[in-house]
């Protein structure tokens, strides 16, 4: 028996981390924008609890001294989302999705695996009430339908319900997402 190596720090997956960070940032801003455009989404948000904070992160987010991609949105007013940024707010999120590792986050965020499929494979943990989880997934699906062309969106969502004024809303959504209002 021999010791091959002592104390190995496995290092970082920088490109994957960067991609996932950008995607989560973009999804956060898109959620903020879609809440101002789509009446269906507004209806869903209205059912969420007051001041509800929802987040998506990648493990080891939250571990002391560790940086990992994350994004948070908060319900403001009656039926709006506000993008809170990439750092954890002071209060505990009402609902938090945590991908178990950066590779599985990549699988979902490169649309190689549907959200529902990833959930079935236990790719992520969801911490919070089931009602919020279902609402959030429906909102996320709606946002993805707006953001992505149909062939790609079909890879990301379980059921494709084409919204009214999809194309005009898509342009508005992109402009709002990029400009952040």
């Amino acid at each position: 028996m021999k010791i091959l190596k002592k104390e190995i720090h496995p290092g970082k997956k920088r490109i994957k981390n960067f991609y996932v960070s950008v995607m989560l940032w973009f999804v956060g801003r898109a959620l903020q924008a879609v809440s101002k455009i789509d009446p269906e989404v507004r209806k869903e948000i209205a059912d969420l609890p007051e001041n509800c904070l929802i987040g998506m992160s990648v493990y080891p987010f939250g571990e002391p001294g560790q940086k990992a991609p994350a994004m948070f949105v908060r319900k403001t007013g009656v039926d709006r989302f506000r993008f809170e940024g990439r750092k954890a707010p002071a209060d505990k999120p009402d609902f938090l999705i945590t991908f178990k590792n950066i590779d599985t986050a990549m699988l979902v965020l490169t649309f190689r695996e549907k959200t529902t499929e990833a959930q079935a494979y236990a790719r992520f943990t969801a911490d919070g009430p089931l009602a919020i989880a279902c609402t959030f997934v429906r909102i996320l699906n709606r946002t993805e339908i707006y953001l992505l062309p149909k062939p790609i969106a079909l890879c990301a969502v379980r059921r494709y319900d084409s919204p009214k004024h999809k194309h005009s809303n898509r342009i508005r959504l992109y402009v709002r997402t990029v400009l952040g209002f």
Partner: protein
Amino acid sequence: MNETVYRNFYVGSKIISGRYALETLSFELLQQNARRPLCLIPETEKAAAGTIRKALKSTVTVIGAVLICGRDESDLPEKIAEVYREQNCDSLIAVAEASLMYAVKSARLKLSAGKTAAEIGRTAAASEITELPPQQVVPLFAVAVPSVEATYYPHELNLGEKRILSPALFANTVFVDPRITKKASARKEWRKPAAAALMTAVWALSDMQSHPAARACALSAIGQVCEALTARSRAEQTRLVCNAQIFSKTALINSRPFPAVELLPLIQVSEEVRIGILKTVFEKELTGLSFGYADLTQAVLTLCGTGSFDNSSPQTVKNSFTNAVSALLEKLFPGKPAAGSVIWKQTAEALPSSYLNDTDLKNECLAFLQSQIGE
């Protein structure tokens, strides 16, 4: 399904299989409050260290040390325990073939009880095992049955005459990752475990009182075998057959309406209850096609807690069986050998010829039973 029948559905290890299985290693370690694992790798598989390191990238896990273990090292458990303490590790990752698996289990005992497995007697094991360090296993061979079974039945540690049985010895998590667990046997060899998995699954499925989850596992196993038949690559076949084996075994051990023989060692019950279970097994199970002759002997030995089982030749099997029956009769009916006659008569009559291939051996065993019954 009879809903009044009591069941306790339990699978000791969490099994994660398929693409990116190993990437969840860090997350699983954290669930067990572990951040600094000791990685054990057989000397023939040094490349696995790189794969594990790659899988742990962008996580909080720091590998305490990587140990390259030889196949025939006698004091391996002691050395593993020493390095574990030196490097301040808090868990073990074993890229395992069967022999290393046993060494790791033994090392865990050493770390927990402060004694080697050989020093701990079988009866004292359950009380002496306190807090075992978490163990993760990445099987090397998917098709080779001993490796998969060693990971799946790690509650048993057999060291010569001493045997330690405890559910605590299960590996916490088994990662069947195609990057490491892909050493396929030759094509003709993977068919045998596939057929075995299929048989086991059908067997579990045919039990009308199976737990629904057990039946689902059995169906999954059949599905995996069917997929393996049409799979394009050998690695894929290997993975599927490995899954099928795990599924079918899970189905089988959970399909019985009362505790199966394989599960008896896991049950922490009093001697009286165990004897009661054994009586049930003899009266009801033996008339069916539940287990083979060698299994029966092993089960008897396990329950009696004495003797040893050697299946190297028909003669040694016979001797083991003879000793086991003597010990059992003593346990079941202390001082009253005649009281056991009803059970043993049923046993002798119920023993189908398929259990014993050797006719002479069967006759000898039956004669022995008759002599014990006193008729």
